[in-house]
């Protein structure tokens, strides 16, 4: 099969990562990578010599329904071997719709993509991250690539090829959009959580941890005593058995002793790092990285090191 590997340029950051993944697939399939824009060209996402612009859909926002329909029409004509999208919520929806329209297999949230010339292989986490499944799908295939799994692709010189796909309509209409509150604690969906425990001595000192959380693009959580007993933070920050259950990529437990009450709420975090003065604190049993030390020294040091890196 001689088709190309397509990358839908849904959004700048994610799609640049997907372009890297596409290069892995293209290499194995002896194919070319094509970044595909829908409606209008997107800035900043590069990775292919030739870029496709699907003309027809208009407007600044392309809904997953419109993206799937436009990609499906173009794919029927141009027969790509694979269409790759970022595994964002919109990307996953568009990919699933596209696969259903084309009647082909769809691989979800994959890392480590490769191709043997006949299909795509990739790995993904299943069963709450306990198991890695290696999956395979024959060409043509639709794939969503896990965000953060690949580095952004390097920019390449490009020329754009326009493809007319016609008007595409969506049965649903977007009537409003608002940012989720920046400091708003949606702990359940936060990728990074900085969590405070009773090792924090005064209410005012929480701002130090909040700063750290903001620097790390994360949210601030706490153990039960801080919210339920001291009332230093509202209840929605409370992580634990009687609070929120979270599964972030990084859980940074600061001054938390690690009673089961607390651990039960964060035990499924991908990576846990903790800072505590007591080397026997149970939290270290539930941690990947442990620093025995005073949070009043380590947290400022972390802040300094983080700003030095950015």
């Amino acid at each position: 099969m001689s088709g190309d590997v397509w990358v839908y340029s849904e959004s700048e950051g994610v799609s640049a990562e997907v372009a890297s993944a596409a290069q892995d697939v293209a290499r194995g399939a002896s194919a070319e990578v094509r970044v595909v824009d829908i409606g209008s060209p997107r800035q900043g996402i590069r990775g292919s010599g030739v870029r496709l612009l699907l003309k027809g859909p208009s407007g600044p926002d392309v809904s997953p329904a419109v993206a799937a329909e436009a990609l499906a029409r173009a794919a029927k004509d141009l027969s790509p071997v694979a269409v790759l999208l970022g595994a964002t919520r919109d990307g996953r929806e568009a990919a699933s719709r596209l696969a259903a329209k084309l009647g082909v297999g769809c691989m979800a949230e994959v890392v480590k993509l490769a191709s043997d010339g006949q299909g795509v292989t990739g790995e993904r986490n299943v069963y709450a991250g306990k198991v890695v499944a290696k999956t395979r799908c024959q060409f043509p295939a639709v794939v969503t690539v896990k965000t953060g799994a690949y580095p952004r692709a390097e920019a390449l010189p490009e020329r754009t090829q326009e493809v007319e796909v016609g008007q595409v309509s969506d049965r649903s209409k977007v009537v409003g959009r608002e940012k989720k509150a920046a400091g708003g604690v949606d702990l359940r969906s936060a990728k990074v959580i900085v969590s405070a425990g009773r090792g924090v001595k005064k209410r005012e000192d929480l701002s130090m941890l909040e700063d750290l959380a903001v620097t790390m693009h994360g949210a601030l959580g706490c153990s039960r005593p801080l919210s339920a007993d001291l009332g230093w933070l509202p209840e929605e920050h409370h992580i634990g058995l009687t609070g929120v259950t979270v599964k972030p990529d990084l859980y940074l437990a600061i001054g938390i002793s690690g009673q089961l009450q607390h651990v039960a709420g964060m035990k499924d975090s991908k990576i846990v790092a903790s800072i505590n003065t007591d080397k026997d604190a149970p939290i270290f049993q539930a941690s990947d990285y442990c620093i025995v030390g005073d949070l009043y020294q380590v947290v400022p040091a972390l802040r300094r090191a983080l700003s030095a890196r950015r």
Partner: protein
Amino acid sequence: MKIAVCVKHAVDEAELRLDTEGRPVLAGAAGKMSTFDKNAVEEGLRLKSAHQGEVVVFVVGAAESKKTLKEALAMGADRGVFVAADPLVIDALRTASMLAAAIRRSGPYDVVICSEGSSDTYTGQVPPMLGELLGVAYVGYARKIEVTGGSARVERSLEDSVEAVETSVPFAVSVVSEINEPRYPTLVQIMQASKKPIEELNGGEIAPPGTISGVEVVSMSSQPSTRKHVMIEGGPDEAAAKLLDALSREGVLK
């Protein structure tokens, strides 16, 4: 209002066992109603209590899946449809096509509700595929659904924004867990629900397999699930630097 809710009898990841070579033992593994599917059932029940009508629950899977169907019936759904299929073989598109066929047979429905993804494999593909296959409007990741007459307003919860969408009945929708707090069916209610009707269908018959091979699982292996317990030594600055190095190696530092 006729409401279809699709649920999955998922592998209970907490009770999952591994064989001597570290592969998960899926045959006979303990199962449960997929976590977020409880939100889907709950939302169906809430729509019913606001608009009257009927809630029908669909499940595709092995015979054990009827346990999940009964749990949904105990929560308050009116009847169930069980579609027999081997969950270890079918991929998302096959599952969606069986659900679509079963829904068409007992439809039409005003609203088809799924959860955003299953708690075991979490591909999140079945709901949009189902929307496509049924040929109705589809809205993903709903955190709020309001139906007024022939139209509906849905709030979609995206990564960093909330999108309000207007669509028309009939439509399919996937819900996120923040949409509601699912009710807990008591043991007595589960026993009482055993009298509610369950229709049994065969997936291969109602949706004959096509020519596509779909996604196959080549192999599975376990990830070390125990914590690493790396003690980071040194003064505050040294320890902080070492920690950040370790975290970026893990790929968890944004």
